[in-house]
């Protein structure tokens, strides 16, 4: 059979094809990524969108968790101060109740208790980055105001009972706050109310008849505040765990993504060298064939 005399054109077309292969391989080597266009691996490109989404969510949660941690720490240390203040309030009250102090000492205890009450009040009005942490969802409103014009003084709660939650990327809900009326002015365990009561009890220089009962109430209140503090501590622990989890998930996903997109350098180098060999062979064939013609022998 007669062969196509234009086979030279075909050889050159093959040469073009190997050049284009070399170009693609070089691009993969240069970028280090085997997927540079959607069509290089459509499924990998689609998966990458989802992986990037998940990694982004994890990354952003890690950052959110860090600032949330700080807010919870602030709440926790405020409650820790309250606990220690209440402890000293109990010992002061107990001292006043044992009947060995004179009137001026009792009065001074009343003043000290008023100081403790003010300290507790200021802890209840703690802010983090301008946000009152114990006022429920009313972060812009000071939770407690104190009216000292009456005796006993009255602390009024102005926040609400809203509990906020932070959702982790896996849908887990972590409590962000304990509303002030659940810690400082809950019915039956009213911290500020009890303190105000005690201040009034000793203000005359003689402990009033309710002083002992109020001191006992203060112990109950202390236990209650400690319990509420546990809620915050729990959140800190859960948040740390969630943060660790998302960080390790992020590392995991990043390595999956790298595997998905990364060019296999060894494989590409081999393919490149094969393409080069082929190209050299083709060039030589073209050069050799180009010299042969019967016309040379006529």
């Amino acid at each position, binding site marked *: 059979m007669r062969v196509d005399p234009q086979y030279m054109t075909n050889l050159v077309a093959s040469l073009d094809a190997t050049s284009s292969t070399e170009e693609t391989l070089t691009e993969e080597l240069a970028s280090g990524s085997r997927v540079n266009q959607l069509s290089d691996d*459509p499924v990998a490109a689609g998966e990458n969108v989802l992986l990037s989404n998940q990694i982004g969510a994890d990354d952003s949660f890690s950052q959110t968790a860090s600032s949330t941690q700080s807010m919870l720490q602030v709440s926790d240390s405020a409650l820790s101060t309250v606990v220690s203040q209440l402890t000293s309030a109990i010992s002061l009250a107990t001292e006043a109740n044992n009947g060995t102090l004179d009137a001026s000492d009792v009065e001074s205890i009343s003043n000290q208790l008023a100081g403790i009450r003010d300290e507790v009040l200021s802890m209840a009005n703690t802010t983090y980055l301008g946000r009152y942490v114990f006022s429920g969802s*009313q972060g812009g409103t000071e939770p407690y105001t104190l009216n000292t014009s009456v005796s006993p003084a009255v602390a009024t709660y102005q926040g609400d009972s*809203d509990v906020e939650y932070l959702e982790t990327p896996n849908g887990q809900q972590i409590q962000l706050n304990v509303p002030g009326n659940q810690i400082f002015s809950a019915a039956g365990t009213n911290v500020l109310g009890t303190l105000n009561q005690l201040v009034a009890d000793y203000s005359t220089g003689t402990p009033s008849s309710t002083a002992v009962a109020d001191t006992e109430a203060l112990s109950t209140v202390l236990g209650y505040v400690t319990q509420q503090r546990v809620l915050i501590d729990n959140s800190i622990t859960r948040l740390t765990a969630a943060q660790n989890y998302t960080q390790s998930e992020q590392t995991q996903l990043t390595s999956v993504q790298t595997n998905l997109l990364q060019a296999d350098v060894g494989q590409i180098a081999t393919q490149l060298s094969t393409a080069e060999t082929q190209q050299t062979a083709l060039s030589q064939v073209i050069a050799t064939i180009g010299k042969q013609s019967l016309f040379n022998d006529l």
Partner: protein
Amino acid sequence: MATISTAFDIATGALDADQSALDIVANNTANANTPGYTLEMPAWEQNDSVSLNGVNFGMGVTLTGAESQRSLVLDEAMQQQTQAENASSARLTALNQMQALFSGATSAGTDTSASSGIGSDLTNLFDSLSSLESSPADDALREQVLSAAGTLASDFNGAASQLESQRTSLDEQGQSVVAQANTLLTNIAQLNLQIETTSPNADAGTLEDQREQDLTELSQLIGIRTVTTENNGLTVTTVGGALLVSEGQAFQITDGENDGVTHYYDSLGDDVTSDLTSGGGELGGILTARDQDIPQTESSLDQLAYAVATQLNTQNAAGVDLNGNAGAAIFSLPAGATEADPAGSAAGITVIMTDPSEIAAAGAGQGTSDNTNATAMANIANQAIVNGTTASQDYSDFVTSLGSLVTEVSGENTAQNAALTQLQNQIGSLSGVNLNDEAAQLETLEQSYEAASKLFTSLDEVMTAALNLGVQTTYSS
């Protein structure tokens, strides 16, 4: 009885024939690289023999002409394959441009730059909302939500406008292709006329070559079917049967604007756009990309943009903002866009909220540090809001299907290319000029020309001998 002068005639005829054959070889060699040239072979014919007194004498050879080595079957197969190959090649070029718009989907990591595409824009938007959960009143975090929303909207706008400008440029390319095709139609009609007058019954040689070449070029441009008619004429129609060339008459394709794009009409004024789209050729590929691939991509983006914007707007309206008011719309969509027909959403989506305090992070009736509505908005990321799936999953599906389409068309094109090369080889092996063959033929003809000349010398001696009637010296030649 045969005479010596008959032998002279035979030798002369042989010399003439050899000379003509040499012409043909020279012409083949000269046209070895001419596109569309078909190899010509000398057609030798033995002259009728003469019977004298019951004895048959051969009367030499005549060259009846040059025969083009052509196969109409292969030529037609080649035209069809050319149409298919050019269609997928033009479509592939358009698709490659299109997928480049979304190549951000292949970049790794959590690149927050705008170039990494709609996928990461969606991630950033929902992440900014979930960041807002931890401190809903924080202005910086609120600002971030608006800026993420703005980036998403502008990336939607950018992709939509680039798709639209690709569509416009394809439309213009289509027009120029049709203009070229119309010129070729005129050429073919003229060649038809010439062939019908000069060579109604046999292969028309170079004229035929030209017509075949024009048909090949036309096949690169548009999808056609050809029918050979009487007197070696040729009728050209579109694949759907609209007449383009009949005998010596060319029927031009005209164009006109319809629904924002160019439509094409045949000589009867019928719309042949869909006929040309499915027909093949470069125009077929261009029109497929213009009327099918780009609108499909646009509509996927429209759906996604519409769903994200309406869901977030609705959820924002359900909460209260930092000022205690019910949430206003974050995004604005073009008027008339609906869930069933979100056309124009990607091109028209904008962020109309300018004051970050208007983001309704708090649930209805709650204070400024409430985050229930911000959580609800962030959770839209995990809800099936478009095509029965989440926004990210939808974009991921979109990217995969676009990439797969490119791969599919690319594979189709490679296969068609291989088939086309195969056909070119077959046609080349039949109709191509092989210089070695020509060299061999030249050598053969040279020898037979020499032999015929030698015959003269010998006949001359024979004639001298006959004139002298055996006396050696009386007359010499």
